[in-house]
């Protein structure tokens, strides 16, 4: 029993590390893309149809790639960035790249929901484009953005299990190696349970933050 628990500790930390790291990097990659996708769409702040449709297509292609293939294709990139293409740190690279287009679409959707009349009002007051994006559109979309980011984190937790296949470590890896290959059902169940708890906790926190914002706004 103690033995089992001890075996679970390190993979849990690895999963958390992978998830947090990948979330941060996928946001860094995906957030600007999402903003760009939204503001360059027809009738929006800076309509640029060529850029918009090109970017949209690129993101769709990236999203269509099966994760496992993307991961292998990205090996050289991981090596370039982290210095190795195996291990937890290396897994963050394909995870971030896989989640970034998803993040971009989520951000795009959330920003498009902002009432265009508010943007008109901000324009009429002489706001610059940057002010409209950062002081109006993004704050107005906070609750939807938080929900979208929560969803992203939960997706990354799921994908991170697959990253175990390239020696990424983590709970998914543990479950496969011990539960599936060595018939240690207790370890497999433990790993699955912890993943479920992490997912539930993420969802709970996400809901709480977004509800708090709504409450502050009296909605």
């Amino acid at each position, binding site marked *: 029993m103690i033995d089992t628990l001890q075996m679970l500790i390190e993979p849990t930390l690895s999963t958390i590390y992978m998830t947090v790291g990948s979330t941060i990097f996928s946001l860094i990659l995906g957030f600007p893309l999402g903003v760009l996708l939204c503001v360059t769409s027809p009738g929006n702040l800076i309509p640029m149809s060529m850029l918009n449709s090109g970017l949209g297509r690129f993101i769709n292609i990236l999203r269509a790639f099966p994760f496992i293939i993307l991961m292998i294709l990205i090996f050289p990139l991981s090596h370039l960035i982290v210095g190795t293409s195996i291990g937890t740190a290396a897994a963050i690279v394909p995870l971030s790249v896989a989640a970034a287009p998803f993040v971009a679409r989520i951000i795009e959707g959330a920003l498009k929901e902002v*009432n265009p*009349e*508010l943007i*008109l*009002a*901000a*324009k*009429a*007051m*002489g*706001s*610059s484009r940057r*002010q409209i994006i950062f*002081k*109006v559109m993004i*704050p*107005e979309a*906070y609750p939807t953005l938080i929900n979208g980011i929560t969803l992203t984190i939960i997706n990354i937790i799921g994908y991170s299990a697959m990253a175990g296949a390239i020696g990424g470590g983590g709970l998914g890896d543990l479950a496969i190696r011990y539960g599936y290959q060595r018939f240690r059902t207790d370890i497999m169940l433990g790993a699955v349970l912890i993943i479920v708890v992490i997912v539930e906790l993420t969802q709970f926190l996400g809901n709480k933050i977004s509800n708090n914002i709504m409450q*502050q*706004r*009296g*909605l």
Partner: protein
Amino acid sequence: MITLGNISKNYNGLRVVDNVSLEIGENVIYGLIGKSGAGKSTLIRMMSLLESLDTGEIYYDNCRVDNLEREKLSRCRRQLGMIFQHFNLFSSRNVFGNVAYPLEIVGKDKETIKKRVSELLKMVELSDKFDYPISKLSGGQKQRVAIARALANHPKFLFCDEATSALDPQTTKSVLRLIKSIRDKIGLTVVIITHQMEVVKEICDYVSIIDNGKIVENGTVKEVVGFPHTKIAREFISTLDTLEKNALQTITSGSATCRLHFDSESVTKPILSYLIRNYQLDVNILSGAIRTVNKEPLGELVLKFIGSATELNRGIAHLESVGVTVEVLDD
């Protein structure tokens, strides 16, 4: 002063604003009234530089503003404030934050912002609500916040697009009075878009009637309400009293039904009793009203005259000669 020179706008080949020229003087409250789809919103968006022009020119105080590049355009827009039918307040900010927004974007420091916002909230009588979320305010209060926000950077012009259309009559009046009192106190040129004659009558100095993107009638409110030339103008004016419309519908027969418009001078004279004593005419009063427009009384009477044709014509001629406009409705 705002000058529009022959401005036009087409949407998909449809001419929505058609060669509009207009001059709006300093500290004037100018009404633009028209039916739904007449092009009012498009016109005010063009005036407030939110919409490009297909043809024409716009000047603010003799300075051309319709051809500015983006940077200058943003700066130019800071001379204007705008309020909307649905208030368009930011839900991500509370009352204070909304009024502070235009000050933040011009880079005012925290202290200055705080001072100016409390000044503005006092002006719109919402000092006690500074930390309220927007959703907890009534419609009238929301529009007051919007007015405070619009005036934060001391604009020269205030544009109002159907700003009272979502409010009940009582609140409409109080918001209009607030706008007027601000104009009187700090000086402001106000352009009001509306489809309600009540609004025009309540606060405007001048009014233009817009139909199909064209200005069809123009003048002081007194002139337009007192002496309308077009059918559409009369339609708008007739919405002022439902009483009078009802009265008109009950006419069954008679020699001549006329609508008489008295100006502020003739309204105070005993014109009608003179008419009856000197002409062979009987008079039936169908409806009547005296309206106060900008503190000056304007009279309107709908009468049925009974008598011979010659007496009728002489009577009407007499009325015209003493400054009453007579509109013959049927005979």
